[in-house]
């Protein structure tokens, strides 16, 4: 059985004070196995971050409606009480956030922010807690950890801050780590280091990792299984190699094609996806991606397309007219972390 099994998860905001309801996550299903790295990929606004917050139980109680199931170790996270979730968070499931500066408390020393989780879940206090905290900082590659414990977030560099956050996340050896765009706010070289660190931790500890990103470079370097999200629904779900070799959904296809390539002939124009995520239609009416799609036909507008495995294809896709032609992605074929992290943003 999978460690985390998300089944038809939906998150709806609003509906109170006469506000219009909006569905951020619309029936998302995926599994994460022990030791597996699963990617949730999509543009900002596609519902990937909301998914992670829903799993952590960190969405506000008011004005949010949850649907479906999310079984962690057989227990549904969505119906757990806040008390149960508090026991679980940080200990069984930990999370790393996007912006390390704003995610650290500016007026509390780093050391306290690490030791507080050790005290909460491992009962460590005083000197043993400080020792363990220093060890954790050392583990995530922060030099001179004992001194750093007394420092405040603003005294650390961006990469250091993200390392400190990772140290907090792995402090209690959680079984599932959720990383929400952990490298977006960092410099490219630092991005590669952080990804390498995550990969190392996953390999050594056997932690499962749910990687939320818009960066296909990160996916190529890290993920075993990839789910592509569009407007709150999974539109394609595949093994990493499968996805990069044969992306079938026009959106996934477009994402891969839009990556600039070093080996492209000089002067060849870039191939962005047209429009933005705001140019969409309701899933109930048809494919939300249709307004931006190069392949769409009138059939695309007859209700929600199903997530199926088309004939002669190796994985699931939610599309009436799946793309059959492969993408040339020379730089991304080799899943080498350092190279792809560069590749994802600047190649």
């Amino acid at each position, binding site marked *: 059985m999978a460690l985390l099994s998300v089944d038809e998860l939906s998150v709806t905001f609003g509906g109170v004070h006469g506000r219009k309801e909006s569905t951020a996550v619309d029936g998302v299903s995926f599994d994460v196995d022990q030791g597996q790295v699963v990617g949730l990929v999509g543009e900002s606004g596609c519902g990937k971050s909301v998914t992670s917050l829903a799993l952590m139980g960190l969405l506000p109680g008011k004005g949010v409606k949850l649907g479906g199931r999310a079984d962690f170790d057989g227990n549904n996270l969505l119906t757990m009480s806040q008390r149960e979730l508090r026991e679980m968070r940080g200990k069984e499931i930990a999370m790393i956030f996007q912006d390390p500066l704003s995610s650290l408390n500016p007026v509390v020393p780093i050391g306290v922010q690490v030791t507080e989780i050790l005290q909460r879940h491992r009962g460590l206090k005083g000197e043993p807690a400080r020792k363990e905290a220093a060890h954790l900082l050392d583990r995530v590659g922060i030099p001179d950890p004992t001194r750093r414990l007394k420092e405040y977030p603003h005294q650390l560099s961006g990469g250091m801050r993200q390392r400190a956050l990772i140290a907090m996340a792995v402090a209690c050896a959680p079984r599932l780590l959720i990383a929400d765009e952990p490298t977006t706010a960092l410099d490219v070289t630092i991005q590669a280091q952080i990804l390498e660190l995550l990969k190392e931790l996953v390999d050594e500890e056997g932690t499962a990792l749910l990687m939320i990103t818009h960066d296909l470079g990160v996916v190529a370097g890290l993920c075993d299984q990839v789910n592509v999200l569009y407007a709150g629904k999974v539109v394609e779900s595949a093994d990493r190699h499968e996805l990069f070799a044969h992306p079938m959904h026009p959106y996934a296809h477009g994402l891969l094609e839009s990556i600039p390539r070093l080996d492209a002939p000089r002067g060849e124009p870039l191939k962005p996806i047209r429009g933005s995520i*705001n140019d*969409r*239609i*309701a899933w109930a009416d048809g494919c939300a991606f*249709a*307004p931006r799609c190069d392949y769409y*036909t*009138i059939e695309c*507008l007859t209700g929600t397309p199903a997530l199926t495995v088309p004939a002669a294809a190796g994985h699931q896709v939610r599309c009436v007219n799946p793309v059959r032609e492969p993408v040339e992605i020379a730089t991304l074929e080799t899943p080498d972390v350092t190279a792809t992290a560069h590749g994802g943003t600047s190649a």
Partner: protein
Amino acid sequence: MTTSTKAAKIERLAELTAQNETSSGASLWREAFRRLKTSKMAIIGGVVIAAFIVMAVVGPWVAPHSPKALTWKDEVFLNRGEFVGPRGENWFGLDHLGRDMFSRFLVGARQTLLVGVVSMLIGLIIGAVIGVVSGAAATLGGAAGRRVDTVVMRITDIMLALPSLLLAASIAAVMGQSLTTVMIAVGVVQIPIFARLLRGSMLAQGSKDYVLAAKSLGIRKRRIVVTQILPNSLSPVIVQATLSLATAIIEAAALSYLGLGNPDPSVPEWGVMLSQAQRFFDNAPMMAVYPAVGIIITALGFTLLGEAMREALDPKLRG
């Protein structure tokens, strides 16, 4: 693909896309106004203010009796502590000199509004001029400008260090006791508040990218200030002006209480009425309650509207 199916396709698509479109194009002000209309605070505040203004305008005409004439002076005995409470003829009862309280209340609204508006305007206009000079000097004046700004801000610091009531009392002491003095005294207290607010707001706007863009395009500095920075800096000032109306009315009442108000007590004004009534509070508390409630509700109205405006204009609170 035939032309007709293609047309149908596009039409259907446009139709479906339109359904999902959000109203993101509205300007800050239009958006703020839209939010104001749905805010309960703003509606209550607006209704109270409207009622107050109507009373101030028509009050003297609809007052059933003369607010100044000592019509029933023979029915009030101060030395015996005998006062006349509400009755058919005099809805709010009589004051200590036998005048009709209801008429005085109605007529007094006009003076109260006058004091509030004039003192707020004194603070607003002078404060805004100082604020604009300081803000413009600080954002675009270079090193010399920053020096000007520092000096001006030090002066407002000094003014802020003085308790407003004492500052007002000192001004009243120099200028003698009159209604004008009250308005100037209350207004002067507001000057540093407006000046600092506008300067701060201009500084915040001055560091925005669009100002940098305008500068790099070689647009004249004065023009940048007038056409770019100033219009975008005004919203906190407008909010403060509304809130200041409330403060001004309360502060004017406090000055009256300290004996610095209008020297002609026959002219009805809520603050003056309240301070006169406090002497007889133990025997006739209602005499103080009517003008006090008038002041509180009016001040509340302006405060509610101001706060609602602040919320409506704050992009952080927009949802």
